[in-house]
């Protein structure tokens, strides 16, 4: 082993240690937040983790797999309704809501994947949106889910703040871990090859349909779980709030502002998005306009998002998914 190689390995090892220490400190601080922070701080970070989770999954689809979906609200709604129906109508425990919701979400994703994966680009995007809208109309006319009346989720009243926060924390951090591991795996390589040039990737042996499907099902599963928590936090669900495209708009904002195609992007984007919403509540009527102007300014200044800009400028790569050739 040459001296240079030894030095490089030493540097890499040192960087790895710094990363682990910083990550551990952050996780400890955030994981224990409800026990030392104020209720408001806990609630804000709870929202950050949930929005981070749906943003991370949208980034996985759009930023890495080239599947730009405008229909992620379908899975959020399925998650919320699973919890509501099973706890409110059948009196089952919350865990059943999560279990059934995740299964229904994945099965639904599997079913709709058959027609929409035959579409590409803008057609796929519009197809996912239409399916989510159709699901909304179906729910408002479906007696089993109480039409458009929806449900209060009274089981949520008794959940302590720290319990809901920790569940959201796990889901938020879990989304980072899932995406990072996925992208570091062989599947991650195929995803990026597919995103960059699906034709070339297919010629080189990448199984497009299978790769897309795995990615789509993982995102569906995690977004459904996140939807369960979003509506537990809200304790009330109606189709108009469950299947609103606002959820996907939030994802797009978070990812575009934070940096599409980066793992750090949705984290930064979620923090900014939730903070802005907290600040802008005091501007009734113009809050969305202000949000839009901020988004436009950031897109003009940093077209690749904040983390894309910082990564280019400072060569940062916090959640590195680069492969190193073993020597």
């Amino acid at each position: 082993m040459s001296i240079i190689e030894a030095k490089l390995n030493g540097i890499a090892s040192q960087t790895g240690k710094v990363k682990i220490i910083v990550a551990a400190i952050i996780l400890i601080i955030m994981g224990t937040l409800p026990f030392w922070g104020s209720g408001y701080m806990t609630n804000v970070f709870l929202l950050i983790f949930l929005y981070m989770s749906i943003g991370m999954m949208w980034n996985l689809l759009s930023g890495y797999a080239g599947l730009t979906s405008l229909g992620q609200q379908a899975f959020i709604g399925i998650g919320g309704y699973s919890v509501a129906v099973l706890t409110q109508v059948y009196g089952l425990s919350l865990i059943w809501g999560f279990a059934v919701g995740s299964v229904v979400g994945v099965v639904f994703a599997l079913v709709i994947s058959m027609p929409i994966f035959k579409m590409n680009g803008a057609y796929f995007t519009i197809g996912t949106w239409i399916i989510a809208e159709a699901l909304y109309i179906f729910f408002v006319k479906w007696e089993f889910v109480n039409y458009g009346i929806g449900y209060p989720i009274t089981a949520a009243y008794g959940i302590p703040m720290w319990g809901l926060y920790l569940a959201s924390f796990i889901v938020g951090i879990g989304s980072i871990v899932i995406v990072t591991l996925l992208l570091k795996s062989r599947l991650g390589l195929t995803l990026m090859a597919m995103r960059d040039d699906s034709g070339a990737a297919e010629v080189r042996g990448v199984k497009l349909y299978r790769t897309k499907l795995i990615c789509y099902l993982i995102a569906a599963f995690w977004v459904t779980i996140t939807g369960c928590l979003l509506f537990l936090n809200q304790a009330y669900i109606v189709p108009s709030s469950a299947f609103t495209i606002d959820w996907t708009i939030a994802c797009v904002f978070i990812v575009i502002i934070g940096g599409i195609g980066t793992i750090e992007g949705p984290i930064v984007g979620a923090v900014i998005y939730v903070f802005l919403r907290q600040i802008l509540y005091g501007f009734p009527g113009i809050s969305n306009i202000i949000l839009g102007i901020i988004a436009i300014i950031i897109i003009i200044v940093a077209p690749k998002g904040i983390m894309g800009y910082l990564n280019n400028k400072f060569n940062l790569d916090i959640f590195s998914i680069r492969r190193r050739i073993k020597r």
Partner: protein
Amino acid sequence: MKKRTRFFAFFLAFLIVILASFSGCGNGEGDIATGGEAGEKSEIVIGYVGPFTGPLSVFTVAFDWVTEKALEEINADGGIYIEAYDKKLPVRVIKGDSESNATKASEIASKFVLDHNVDILAASWTPETSAPVSAVAERYSKPCLISNSPADSWLEGGPFKWSYGLMFYVESMMASYIDGLDKLDTNKKVGFLFDSEVDGVTFSALLKKMLPERGYEIVDPGRFAMATTDYTNIITQLKEAECDIVMGNQILPDFTTAWQQFKQLSYVPKAMVIGKAIAYGSDVVALGGDLGVGLITEIHWDRSFPYTSSLLGLSCEEFASLWESENNSQYPATSLGYDLALFEVLDIALNNCKDLESATIRDQIAAVSYEGIYGKLSFDENNVMNIPIVAGQWLEGETWDYEPIVIGPGNFPIIPAQDPIILPGTTRQ
């Protein structure tokens, strides 16, 4: 490597700064339960969540004006005397915009409780606001007063320990409609035009029980999604069934589309009863032409009500006139009454509080029994103050383009009513 390490250090510092800055927000959960330290309290804060933008924003048009009038009165002598602090505390209202969206309503209510540490949560208008705000109140054990939302759907989230409502029961609303319809010469065939939103489903289900009991036959084409743009199929079914009466509940843009299509298809029923869409004179004008003449709707408050405000000391007529003279526009009947009633109840409850513990405020809200802008009221076993609701008809007015008359008092016979005058179907075909 150095750059990366610096970045990590920066990231950690950034996180700590964020956490530190948030530590300064709110007073922590301990204070939320106690309502703040006795010596530090300088005001009573009410956090109000309402739809100030979005499709329901029309209902909050009077809130700022009524708040100003109410607070002028409440804070006139320095505020409300609270024994625990041995001083008068002024009342302040902070408002948040739900954007007519349940998710936003929930987020804002949480912010009010956890960040602003409000003493009371308040919210108004439709289940999309009332249900999520009540849920937040129940979760954080914060007294909450909701105004104007159908009690029936709100109660599905109960039983409530912390939330109270100034609301109407849907049965009262339907009884008043049927009272008005009884006065008309029709074939008693009622066609439904109810969408699949909360109100549409609830109202149509109740009418299916009540109308046959009163001798009416129902023709129901089924529920449809909000923002539907083509009503041809529904209108054709109602026309073929020869319904003299059509009853529905829609927001204004949807009803405008539907009502114009009724006319285009040459089917104008003798009576068109439509909830929510035409709560205000300006809504009726917005229909265009004379499309609003004779339409029947619910009246949540009217200048003709024989009551006097406990807070302002004004009769309904005087209160409506005050709006019109100061704002140079027709009084927004639905909002004006409910907004004032909200402050009347809060004023009485707070004046009876010896301290500002959440439980004390909650108990004093529950104990309110008073006579005000809606007459004599107190909370029932469901935490609901049963607010009068009557059926009215829009007619061309002398002062304003359209003015309503009360035609069906329903469960509130003390409210004077007139006979309906014009049948839409008799004036155009």
